[in-house]
């Protein structure tokens, strides 16, 4: 709803006559004054042009890598979860680490689409589609680990959902892991819906431009009869806003509940009240880093410099800087309160975390998550895209290590020194985890190839030409 400002000529404050804003123009969201036609062509041609060789090569490599996960999971199911290197006292290892890592990455998409939409941050338009796709594929990767960690995976439905069965197996409703099932599945469903619904107008464009019959049917079915009518757009805008409102609490709830997996326990290093917002900040941090890791190469390959501008990169790197600093604040609070509490177990957990047998992992985490994003204070670094990509890569590595540090360091040195141990992953752990990057890449490459990488309609809406007063001389 739009309302004119309430300044009428009869009640015009005199100070308005002295208004003289300093010159500081806002940076354009689409550079070089590109028109609607150019935007449509640029985005649609990515899908319509013949498949590039690099795509085919990458797809094969990704498929090969994904097979690692397949083989790893088959081996786990046929042999048992002990092949994952889980031994007392570390009965939670890479499985939960990888789950939290991928779910965290799955936060940026809906954050960009929903929260930035509610905050009216128009720069989100160039990156939201790919980020949403990333969200969905990351959640798919995340889901594999807890499902297969249940052991007899063919019975997972009974462990996870309250389905009556003759085994008398029921979910443990008091466990945050069970809440995860509902939180993540709801988040996945709404994110998928949001992603798909946002794509409908663009699928209509691809359908209308399609030359081959299979394309006409493929995009025609997906576009669900989109006709660009006023009524369609009106319903679309309302549905988009409602889904944005619905998704916002979901984004926060998912990682909050993931943090509860640890924080409801009594284990020093896990039980700390700052975990919910700290995990959410960490998820946004890693999600944005992954968006840049993916989008910077795509921007170069597809020549999207006018659509994903330096301003977009600045905004994202600043969010990474802000959330990385929040994560650093949380690390500091954990340490401070551990010392302030006077609880020797808490103090030990954190001193051991930094200087114990997993100290190396802790310092990788600090270097990657707290120190490396601080480089984004400098404009020259934000404008050096190779460096931005490398820092984002470090952030992804650091955020994986954060989950590793939290999970393993607290378990390996718990209350009973006689049972302390050193956890190491097995080759099955390693193969299964690295294979998920292949699985993720397969899905992402298919998305690039067959669906519009950028939201055509939304990008057009933030160009100067979309302003009804564009070109007015008075």
């Amino acid at each position, binding site marked *: 709803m739009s309302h004119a400002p309430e300044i009428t000529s009869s009640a015009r404050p005199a100070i308005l006559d002295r208004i003289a804003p300093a010159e500081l123009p806002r940076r354009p969201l689409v550079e070089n004054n590109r028109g609607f036609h150019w935007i449509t062509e640029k985005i649609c041609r990515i899908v319509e042009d013949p498949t590039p060789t690099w795509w085919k090569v990458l797809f094969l490599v990704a498929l090969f890598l994904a097979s690692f996960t397949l083989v790893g999971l088959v081996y786990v199911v046929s042999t048992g979860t002990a092949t994952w290197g889980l031994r007392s006292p570390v009965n939670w290892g890479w499985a939960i680490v990888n789950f939290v890592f991928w779910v965290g990455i799955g936060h940026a998409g809906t954050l960009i689409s929903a929260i930035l939409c509610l905050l009216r941050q128009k720069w989100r338009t160039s990156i939201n589609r790919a980020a949403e796709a990333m969200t969905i594929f990351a959640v798919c990767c995340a889901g594999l680990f807890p499902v297969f960690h249940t052991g007899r995976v063919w019975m997972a439905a009974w462990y996870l959902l309250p389905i009556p069965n003759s085994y008398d197996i029921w979910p443990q409703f008091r466990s945050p892991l069970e809440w995860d099932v509902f939180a993540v599945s709801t988040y996945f469903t709404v994110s998928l819906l949001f992603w798909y619904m946002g794509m409908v107008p663009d699928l209509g464009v691809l359908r209308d431009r399609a030359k081959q019959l299979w394309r006409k049917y493929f995009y025609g079915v997906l576009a669900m009869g989109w006709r660009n009518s006023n009524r369609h757009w009106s319903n679309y805008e309302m549905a988009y806003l409602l889904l944005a409102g619905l998704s916002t609490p979901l984004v926060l709830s998912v990682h909050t509940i993931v943090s509860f997996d640890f924080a409801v326990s009594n284990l020093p290093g896990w039980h*700390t009240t*700052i975990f919910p917002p700290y995990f959410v900040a960490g998820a946004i941090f890693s999600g944005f880093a992954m968006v840049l890791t993916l989008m910077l190469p795509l921007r170069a390959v597809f020549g999207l410099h006018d659509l994903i501008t330096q301003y977009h990169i600045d905004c994202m790197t600043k969010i990474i800087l802000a959330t990385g600093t929040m994560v650093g604040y949380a690390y500091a609070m954990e340490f401070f309160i551990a010392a302030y509490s006077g609880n020797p177990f808490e103090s030990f957990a954190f001193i051991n975390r930094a200087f114990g047998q997993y100290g190396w992992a802790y310092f990788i985490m600090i270097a990657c998550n707290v120190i490396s994003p601080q480089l984004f204070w400098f404009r020259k670094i934000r404008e050096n895209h190779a460096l931005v990509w490398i820092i984002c890569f470090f952030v992804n590595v650091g955020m994986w290590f954060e989950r590793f540090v939290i999970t393993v360091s607290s378990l390996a040195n718990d209350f009973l020194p006689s049972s302390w141990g050193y956890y190491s992953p097995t080759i099955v752990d390693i193969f299964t985890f690295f294979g998920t990057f292949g699985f993720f890449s397969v899905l992402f490459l298919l998305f690039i190839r067959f669906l519009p990488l950028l939201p055509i309609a939304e990008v057009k809406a933030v160009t100067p030409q979309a302003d009804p007063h564009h070109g007015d001389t008075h």
Partner: protein
Amino acid sequence: MSKTNDCSVDASGGCDCFRKAPLWLGVGIVGLAVAYVGAFVFGVPQHDYRPLYSLLLGTAFWASVLVGCLMMTMITRIFDAGWAPIIRRQWENLIVALPVVLSLGLLPLVFFPPARKLVWEWTNPEHVLPNGHEVGHDTVLALKSWWLQVPFFQGRIVLYIVIFSALVFFLRRWSFAQDKDGSAAHTGRLAVVSAAGIILGALTLTFLAFDTLMALTYHWFSTMFGVWFFAASMRACFAFTAVLCLALATRGWLKGLYNQAHRHVLGCLLLAFTVFWAYISFSQYFLIYNANIPEETFWYNIREFSSALVDGEWVNVKNQWWWVSLALIFGHFFFPFLFLLFYRSKVVPGRLLFIALWTLAFTALDFYFNIVPRQITDAAFPEGFYVNKFLDVSMLFDAAAFLGMGGIVLGLFLRNASKQEIIPIHDPRIQESIHYHE
């Protein structure tokens, strides 16, 4: 360049709001005088901590409003928010009161040993704990003594005031300099100060909350406590800003400048931070409840139960703080949340004013909940203590402290506003702000 130091520029024909600065300052001085009398004439000589808490309550409440304003001044700078300049100028005039409020409220309590010992038990080695031990022989305090030691504590409080003063100084200096020379370079400088200032401000407000509020019950600890203070401060800031701007748009210099879209923004932010406050408060409660570790749960237990002799047996009964807790759940979250979901609640002036005042009242109650409950050592009780009550005659001093600090804040605000442009006329986004629409 002519100064806009009176309201005659306003098309309404002028207003006398600037002339009310001495009146509000007078109210502030009288209110504070009553609060000081309560604290130092009734409280200290009678070894009664409660009138001293009045000063702490008034300070915490108004400091939270001003800390929120300070953080929003910086946040809107780094976000380059188009709607903000008109409202940010009011924050810039408000935040000058932050160091004053902290100095007037905290320094007498921190540097006057009899008062300090009554307020912060850990500073009184002779104080007897419910377990019969003196604070001076408390092993828990011994483990915390690297942080909880009096000279260090005093130094930290002074440091917090100095940091806030420095941020206030730089944020105001370059913003007002831009009014004079119209240079866009100031906007860049302010963005840099704000980016660094947010980190500094976040750490300062966190440790201010730890030292002045969390340390009231020094055995207790929560990593979330600083975030709770931030959430409460942001809510208080938006609620107070909504009231202030509405008053200024009705009778002051924002007439014809502060429009429906500005109200909508403040309403949306108030809604967002209502949810954020609930999220933080619930998370802290839930994690402590679920882990059920006695060294943490006692803080919530005394806010629910008191021991009482019923039919010759000691039992736990719900105390007054239980009703305060319920009032916070329903009055400080559910009601404002549901109310603010409606579009008209955010834009209709009367409705926004109502919910803003409501939020401020419940923010004060939230500070009661976090500050006042205390274990009063008494060997007659089976656990060695009883819990003080919410309703207390010292609430009269509380009212004086709230009013006194509020008077100081408003008086300083009006006095400062009269010396500056009423809106930042050369801010690069001033046109966007004036013509801001939904």
